[in-house]
């Protein structure tokens, strides 16, 4: 039937047309408002995953960058963090990648190996890359180096230390642990093994995912870069795992699983240390601000203010000091980026490289982030921050350590990461006595096969 044959038809078509035009105009207007890029500037499309308060900080950095120079304009787009890598791949496959991306998964080598991202020496001069290498903390350098080439720059480091509830320890006549034996003593004193009733609190319980931190503390390496070998079966890694599993033997796998899952039911993301579920917990630098807020609220309520400490991971005999696991959020420039020079300029601005340390210090203070270079730490603004947040100093010291290791930066790293975590999880949750040498051997072989395949596709 012809739509124009009746008044009703004409009216319907007119309304639909008006609605369509209105939608188009509104969309154009909104988009125009969203991206007012000056005509004489090159746009740098930057995908990131920060939300909430962090998003405002990111937008502020972009704003400061845009105000600081005349050539580029950064357009920061917040993407849902979940599966950001998948979205990135679809954009690469579709031929329209962003100009700059920030990602926190251990994917640098996988992406670099496959040519999805640019090595920095493809964007800037080798001399500048060399200067950057010397400028970065060793841990920051390790995070982004694959086959002796830098494939990105971390904008901040995530470092783990032990947080200690000193007030709670004092009640039991204990002090902060310096060795693994001290830590075991704390665990046994606060939660004596063999109790039949469910435990209400623990001194310390190892988290199976933290095998990545305890391995280096015991002096072990998960991977030998010189010959490309996965080295889970080295004695130090086995010792680290055996020590973690000793907690399973003390308390039973069911109790550990029960207690750990109990942390999730604390309101919001409450730090379990505040609820005195534990006396000692391994966590990252972001808890420093939580502690400060908690102490402030206690003071306001006129309660006794709980005292906390942050200490490096205690070592066993023969272990490495200031060791642990590091990860971070890395800037990478996708291959096919239309504004790689602009992206590089923004990376330098954010991280503080090339004489921009003062601005980077300001950003790190705002976000409570660990800088990637000692030069940024030395800035007055950051020094001031460290005086206000003394617990943060431990993390800065650890950031400068040579013994902080990321998940090996090799193709197949996400698989490597998952398999090692699964190994520790299986060992700690096993209802029968786990055969650690066999488990390590099997996992090592499996990862080696995967890594070889990822590195050298037939």
């Amino acid at each position, binding site marked *: 039937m012809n739509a124009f044959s009746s008044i009703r038809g004409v009216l319907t078509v007119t309304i639909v047309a008006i609605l369509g035009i209105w939608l188009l105009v509104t969309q154009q207007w909104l988009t125009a408002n969203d991206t007012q890029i000056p005509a004489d500037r090159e746009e740098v499309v930057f995908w990131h995953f920060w939300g909430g308060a962090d998003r405002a900080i990111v937008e502020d950095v972009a704003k400061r960058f845009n105000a600081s120079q005349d050539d580029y304009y950064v357009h920061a787009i917040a993407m849902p963090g*979940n*599966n950001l*890598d*998948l979205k990135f*791949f679809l954009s*690469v*496959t579709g031929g329209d990648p962003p100009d700059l991306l920030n990602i926190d998964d251990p994917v640098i080598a*996988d992406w670099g190996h*496959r*040519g*999805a991202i640019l090595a920095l020496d493809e964007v800037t001069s080798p001399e500048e890359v060399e200067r950057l290498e010397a400028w970065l903390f060793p841990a920051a350098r390790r995070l982004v180096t694959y086959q002796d080439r830098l494939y990105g720059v971390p904008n901040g480091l995530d470092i783990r230390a032990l947080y200690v509830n000193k007030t709670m320890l004092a009640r039991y006549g204990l002090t902060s642990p310096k060795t693994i034996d001290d830590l075991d003593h704390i665990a046994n004193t606060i939660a004596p093994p063999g109790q*039949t009733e*469910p435990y209400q609190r623990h001194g310390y319980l190892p988290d199976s995912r933290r095998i990545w931190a305890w391995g280096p503390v015991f002096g072990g390496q998960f991977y030998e870069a010189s010959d490309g070998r996965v080295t889970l079966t080295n004695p130090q890694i086995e010792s680290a795992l055996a020590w973690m599993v000793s907690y399973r033997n003390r308390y*039973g*796998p*069911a109790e550990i*699983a*029960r*207690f*750990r*899952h*109990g942390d*999730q*039911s604390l309101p919001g993301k409450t730090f379990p240390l505040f609820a005195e579920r534990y006396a000692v917990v391994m966590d990252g630098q972001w808890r420093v601000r939580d502690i400060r807020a908690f102490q402030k609220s206690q003071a306001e309520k006129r309660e006794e203010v709980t005292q906390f400490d942050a200490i490096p991971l205690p070592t066993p005999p023969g272990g490495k000091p200031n060791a642990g696991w590091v990860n971070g959020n890395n800037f990478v420039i996708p291959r096919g980026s239309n504004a790689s020079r602009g992206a590089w300029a923004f990376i330098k601005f954010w991280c503080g490289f090339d004489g921009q340390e003062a601005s980077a210090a300001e950003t790190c203070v705002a976000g409570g982030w660990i800088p990637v270079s000692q030069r940024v730490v030395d800035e007055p603004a950051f020094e001031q921050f460290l005086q206000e947040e003394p617990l943060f100093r431990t993390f800065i010291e650890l950031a400068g350590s040579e013994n902080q290791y990321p998940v090996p930066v090799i193709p*197949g790293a*996400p*698989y490597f990461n*998952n398999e090692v*975590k*699964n190994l520790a*999880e*299986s060992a700690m*949750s096993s*209802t*029968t006595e786990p055969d650690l040498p066999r488990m390590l051997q099997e996992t090592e072989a*499996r990862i080696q096969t*995967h890594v070889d395949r*990822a590195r050298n*596709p*037939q």
Partner: protein
Amino acid sequence: MRKVCGQDRHNRKQITSTLTENPEIHSPLKTSTKTVLPHHANSSEGPPTSSHASRRRWRSWFTAAGFASPWLIGLLALFVYPFVVSLYWSFCQYDLINPPRFVGLDNYQQLANEFATGTGIAHALWNTGYYALLSVPLSIVLGVGLATLLSCDVRGQSIFRTLFYLPSVIPVVAASILWMWLLNPTDGLVNSILGSLGLWQPQWFASPAELVSPESLTSAAWAGNSAPIGSKDALVLMSLWGMGNFMVIYLAAIGDIPKSLYEAARIDGAGPVRRFVNVTLPLLTPIIFFNLVMGLIQSVQAFTQIYIVSEGRGAPADSTLVISLHLFLSAFQHLNMGYASAVAWLLFAMLGIATWFLFTTSRRWVYEGVR
């Protein structure tokens, strides 16, 4: 525009209906129109009526295709193309960035190796089978049972029906998070209730334990207040909560069973149990069969709820690494689209075989009426 008065409209309707109902009036009118056109007058392609009918058929076909085109384009682009191309990719090394490279049967060889060593796909298959073989039969038994109870003529029947169906309309993400909270081993609602009753308190999503396993038969597994009930068992429980969809179908089917059959059975002295076994159940078997096939396919393809409760990696200790999650991780985390495509085709083949098996055996137990 000329105003159409009521009488005009009435006359037009009458003419239209007459033409529609009486083709003998309709055809000559049209034919006469065609005869005045020189092209058709000189046409040697056959009688004008058949040419017109053919053109009308084409026109109506195009109209239908036009209306269906959004769906057809979607089908071709989102289903047929990926379906075909994934078969090719399953013989390739493909990382989504570089072009696919043909590697023959390598990916299938890798699957065979994993079957041989009990890793990767073999482990995922075990987890999937465990979940499907527990959740599907249990959902059928509970669905039929609930539908039978809800079909009884009691007060507030519609309220009960709504309550049991309600979980089916809750988004799967919200339901998963709710269940994670309910089954928290320390202070989840379920364990709190079990604890207050002095019963075992399983670790649910925190443990890789399996209820249906030889280890659960040992006394050590039930020592203290723990129980060998783990993540997969918790997933099965979750799946049963959302069985309202199936229950509604059973309910409708029970309503369709002729009352005369129950009356005849009652006259013959059959009690409620015998009436259920000899009347309700046989007549429900076509529906049970439908739900069995659909349930099997759905449970093997289950992804969202498993992704949420397992931290997206099959935790704890790969105990919830089902085939769909294994496929997803292989494709988009390990960048091995070729291998993932091979897994997808294996899954497709297995589902095909399982469905064929069910159809073959259905002749023995599905009641299809008197032939």
